[in-house]
C-alpha cells in the first residue's frame, strides 16, 4: 500500500549558498604550513646556524675547537661502540623472539606479547634504576650468588640499551615474518631443502627489509638515548654524545652553547643519516606489505621441546621485565641504602619523605601532570586535524607536512632541547618573550617532540574507517561538527585515545629534553628522579620510580579494558 506521504509531496527548496571554502582552504593550508615551519623546522635551522657563528659572523672556529679535542673523539668512539653493540643485541633478541612468535606453535602468545611491549611504556631510565637494584649490593643476585656484573660500564650500558629497545626490532620483524607466504617454504621443502637451508636462503633474505628497518630504528633510539648512559655512564666516566652535550650545557663554559651546538650537529648528522638509510630500506620493502598476515603457526614442536621453549621464553621475559621492578619495589622499602632486606629494616619512610616532606616532588608531579595533560590535548586536537587532512587529501603536500613534523622526533632529545633553547630564547632577534627558564618552554618542546606520535595514531585510526562512512553522513545532511560527533569520533575514539595515552605517558616520564630545559620551580618527574640518583639518594629515586611504574601499569590496564569495552558496547564487535 502506498500512503500519501510517500507520493512525492512538495519538496522544500532552500536557497543554495556557495561555500567560500575553496578560498578559505588555501588560506588554512598556508597558515598550517607556516605553523609547521615555525615550530618544527626553524628551530633545527637555528641550531645549525649557531654552530657556524662566532661573534656574529660566519666561522668554523667552534668546529675547529671541538674537533681538535681528544675528549670529543673518545666520546664519538664510545657512542659508536655503544650504539652498534646495543643495536646488535637488540636485533638478535628481537629477531629471535619475532621468529618464534611468528612461526612456532607455543601457548600464551597474547601474554608474551604484552610482556614484550612492557619496555615501551616504562621509560628506560626507570628500567635502569630497577636493574641497578636487581644487580646491586642488596639485590637477589648478590645475596644468592655473591657476585653480580657491574652495570656501570660499557657492557652495562650496551646490555640495558639492547634490552630496552629490542621490542622495536620485534615489532618491525614479526609481521614481516608472518607475511612471508608459507608456500615459499613449502616449495623449498619439496625441492629438497633442509630446515636450516630454508631459514638461511628463504626466510631471512625475505625478512631482511623488516630486520634492517627495525635495526636502524633501534640504532637511532640507542644513539638518542640519554637516560641509560646518564644513569650508568656519568658515574663511571663513560661519555656518549648525548650525555656530553648535556654536560656542556650544565657546565656553563664560556662557549657552552656553541660547543653543544657543534656536538649536536655531529649527533644530528649521524641520526639523520640513519633516518635516511631507514627510509630508503623501508621504501624498498613496500612490496611485502601487500601480502596478508598469516597468523597460524608453521612449526609444531613435540610436547617436551615446546614446554622447554615456553619455559625459556617466560624465564627471559620475567627476568628482564618483571623481577627487576619487583626488586626495585621491595628495596624502596628499606630504611637506609645498604641495609639487608629484612623485616625490621622495612618501612614507608622513603615514600613519606618523597611524597610528603620534599616539596620538589610535589611540584614536579604537578608540573609533569599539567604538562602531560596540556601537551596531550594540544597534540590530540592539532594532530588529529593533520591526520584527517592526510587521510582525506593524500598527496605531496600532506606527506611533506608529516615528514616535517617527524624531524623533532627523529632528532636526539638533547639536540632537540638545544634547538628549543636557541629558537625560543629569542624567536625574533632582539625580542625575548621570557619562555626559556619557565615551564612553557617545556610545553613547546614536548608538543614539538611528540606531535608526530598523535598524528600517526590518529591517522592509523582513521585508516580503519571506510571513506563511505563519512560520505554517507554527508549525503544524509550532516555538516562538519555533527559529522565528527556522531560518526567519525565514535569510530576512531579508541585509536585516538591510544595515541593520546602514548603522548601522555611519554611526557609524564620524559627525561632527556627536560634535563636541559628545566628550571628551578619547573622540575619534572624525570628530572627529580635523576637528581635524587645523582645526589646518591637511591632509596628516594626507587620509591618515586616504583610509584610511577605502578601508575603506568594501572593506566595501561585501564586503557586495555576501556578499548575492549568500547569495541563491544559501541562498535558491537564480538
Amino acid at each position, binding site marked *: 500500500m502506498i500512503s500519501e506521504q510517500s507520493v*512525492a509531496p512538495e*519538496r*522544500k527548496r*532552500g536557497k*543554495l549558498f*556557495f561555500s567560500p571554502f575553496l578560498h578559505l582552504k588555501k588560506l588554512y593550508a598556508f597558515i598550517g604550513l607556516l605553523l609547521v615551519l615555525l615550530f618544527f623546522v626553524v628551530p633545527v635551522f637555528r641550531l645549525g646556524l649557531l654552530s657556524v657563528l662566532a661573534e656574529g659572523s660566519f666561522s668554523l672556529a667552534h668546529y675547529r675547537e671541538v674537533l681538535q679535542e681528544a675528549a670529543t673523539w673518545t666520546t664519538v668512539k664510545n657512542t659508536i661502540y655503544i650504539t652498534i653493540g646495543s643495536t646488535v643485541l637488540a636485533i638478535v633478541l628481537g629477531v629471535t623472539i619475532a621468529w618464534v612468535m611468528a612461526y612456532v606453535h607455543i601457548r600464551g602468545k597474547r601474554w608474551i606479547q604484552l610482556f614484550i611491549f612492557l619496555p615501551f611504556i616504562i621509560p628506560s631510565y626507570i628500567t635502569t634504576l630497577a636493574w641497578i637494584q636487581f644487580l646491586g649490593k642488596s639485590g637477589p643476585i648478590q645475596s644468592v650468588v655473591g657476585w653480580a656484573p657491574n652495570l656501570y660500564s660499557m657492557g652495562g650500558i650496551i646490555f640495558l640499551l639492547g634490552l630496552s629497545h629490542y621490542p622495536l626490532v620485534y615489532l618491525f620483524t614479526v609481521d614481516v615474518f608472518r607475511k612471508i607466504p608459507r608456500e615459499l617454504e613449502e616449495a623449498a621443502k619439496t625441492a629438497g631443502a633442509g630446515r636450516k637451508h630454508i631459514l638461511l636462503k628463504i626466510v631471512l633474505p625475505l625478512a631482511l627489509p623488516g630486520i634492517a628497518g627495525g635495526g636502524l630504528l633501534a640504532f637511532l633510539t640507542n644513539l638518542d638515548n640519554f637516560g641509560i648512559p646518564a644513569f650508568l655512564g656519568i658515574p663511571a666516566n663513560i661519555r656518549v654524545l648525548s650525555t656530553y652535550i648535556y654536560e656542556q650545557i650544565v657546565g656553563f663554559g664560556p662557549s657552552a652553547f656553541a660547543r653543544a651546538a657543534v656536538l649536536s650537529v655531529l649527533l644530528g648528522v649521524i641520526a639523520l643519516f640513519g633516518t635516511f638509510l631507514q627510509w630508503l630500506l623501508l621504501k624498498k620493502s613496500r612490496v611485502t606489505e601487500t601480502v596478508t598476515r598469516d597468523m597460524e603457526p608453521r612449526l609444531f614442536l613435540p610436547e617436551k621441546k615446546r614446554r622447554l621453549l615456553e619455559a625459556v621464553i617466560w624465564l627471559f621475559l620475567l627476568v628482564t621485565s618483571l623481577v627487576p621492578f619487583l626488586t626495585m619495589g621491595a628495596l624502596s622499602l628499606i630504611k637506609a641504602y645498604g641495609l639487608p632486606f629484612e623485616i625490621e629494616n622495612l618501612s614507608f619512610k622513603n615514600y613519606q619523605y618523597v611524597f610528603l616532606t620534599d616539596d620538589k616532588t610535589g611540584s614536579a608531579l604537578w608540573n609533569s601532570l599539567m604538562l602531560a595533560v596540556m601537551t596531550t590535548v594540544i597534540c590530540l586536537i592539532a594532530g588529529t586535524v593533520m591526520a584527517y587532512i592526510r587521510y582525506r587529501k593524500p598527496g605531496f603536500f600532506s606527506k611533506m607536512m608529516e615528514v616535517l613534523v617527524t624531524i623533532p622526533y627523529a632528532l636526539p632529545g638533547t639536540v632537540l632541547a638545544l634547538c628549543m633553547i636557541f629558537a625560543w630564547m629569542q624567536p625574533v632577534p632582539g625580542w625575548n618573550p621570557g619562555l626559556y627558564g619557565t615551564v612553557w618552554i617545556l610545553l613547546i618542546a614536548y608538543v614539538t617532540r611528540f606531535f608526530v606520535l598523535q598524528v600517526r595514531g590518529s591517522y592509523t585510526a582513521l585508516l580503519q574507517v571506510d571513506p563511505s562512512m563519512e*560520505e554517507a553522513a554527508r*549525503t544524509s545532511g550532516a555538516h562538519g561538527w555533527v559529522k565528527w560527533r556522531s560518526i567519525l569520533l565514535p*569510530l576512531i575514539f579508541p585509536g585516538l585515545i591510544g595515541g593520546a595515552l602514548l603522548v601522555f605517558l611519554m611526557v609524564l616520564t620524559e627525561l632527556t629534553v627536560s634535563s636541559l630545559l628545566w628550571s628551578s620551580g619547573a622540575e619534572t618527574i624525570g628530572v627529580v628522579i635523576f637528581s635524587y640518583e645523582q645526589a646518591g639518594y637511591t632509596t628516594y629515586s626507587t620509591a618515586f620510580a616504583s610509584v610511577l611504574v605502578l601508575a603506568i601499569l594501572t593506566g595501561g590496564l585501564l586503557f586495555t579494558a576501556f578499548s575492549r569495552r568500547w569495541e563491544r558496547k559501541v562498535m558491537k564487535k*564480538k
Partner: protein
Amino acid sequence: MIQLHDVSKQYGSFTALHSVNLTMKHGEFTAILGPSGCGKTTLLKLLAGFMEPTSGEIQMDGSLVASKHQLIPPEKRNIGMVFQSFALWPHMTVYDHIVFPLRHHRHTQDEWKKDMVARVQHVLKMVGLDQLFDRYPSELSGGQKQRVALARAIAPLPDILLMDEPLSALDVELRMDMRTEIQRIHRETKACIVYVTHDQGEALAMADKIVVMNKGKIEQIGSPEDIYTKPETAFVASFVGKCNMVKGKWEEGRFTPRAFPWETWPDIGVAESLKQEGFCPVRPEQWAMADESGEGLKGTVLSVQYQGKEVHYVIEVEEEKWTVHQSIFSRRYQAGDTVSLAVKAAEQQPVFV
C-alpha cells in the same frame, strides 16, 4: 533536473572524465553503465558533491552547484545516496540510521521532524524492515543491510537518489529481489535516480534511460531497448549486447562480410555510425545455425556449453571466434563439427499495449 555541461575531471595527469554533457529529468531512472575505470564512479561523486570538476558546470534545478571554482557540498544538496559497501555505521541501530538524515537533512519536511518515529516506521515498512529497528548492522544479513542503506537514503525524500553499484555486494538471488524493490521505491518516491553499475542486466531491467560510458566518455544515451538493439558504437554493441563484430562493407542497405565476399546480409537495424565504420554487429541470438550443407559462412565448433534455457557455442570462422546462442530445441552440434552461420531476418517490432 540535473544538467552537466562539458564536465571534465582530472586526477593529476589522468583524465577520468572527458567533457561530459548529460541531462537527467525529474523522476527519471538513469543508469550509468560501463566497465570499471570508465569514469562512472567519478561522475557519481561529482553529482554528490564530494569534489569539484576540473572544468565545466553542474546544475541542479536550474542553479549552479559545481564548477571549477565553486562547490555546494553534499550536505547542502537535496540528495540521498546508497553506497556499494552499504556504509552503515557500526555503532548505530537501524532506527538511528533512519533518524540521522531526518534530523540533519535540509530538505526533511517539518511534519516528519515533529514525529520522527512515525516516519521511521513508514520508511522501514517501505523497505520491508519494520521488525528490525533496534538491530545493529553486525546483526543484519547482507540483504537487510542494503535495505537499511536504502531506507536511510530515501528517508528525507530527496529529489535525487544516487546509487553506487548497490547490488554488487549481494549474491545473485538477492540481487533479483532487490531489483524489484528498487523499482517499487522509484515508483513510490518519484525521485530522480542515478544508478551506477557495470552489470548491463541491472541497467536494462530497471532504467528509463541508460548512459553507456567508456574511458571517461559517453558512448551512447538511450532507452534500454535502443541501447540493446541499436548500438551506435562498437563498444556499446559488444559491452551491452555481447555482439559479434563482423567486419565488412555496407552497400545499398546490404552487408557483405569481408571474409566472405559472396554473402550479402539484410540490414537488421544497424546504426549509421557503425555502417560507416564497416561493422555489422550480430548478437549471439541473431545467428541461424545449420549443418555443413546449409547456406552461409562455414565455421568449426570450438566449444559447447549447455545453459539450461539455451546452448552456447563458440564458433571459429576465419580465425575469429564468434559466440552463438541457440534454443535447446534446435539441432545440437559437438566440438569439431563444421557448421554454417547466417543472420536471421530483421526482428519483429515489439508491440506495446
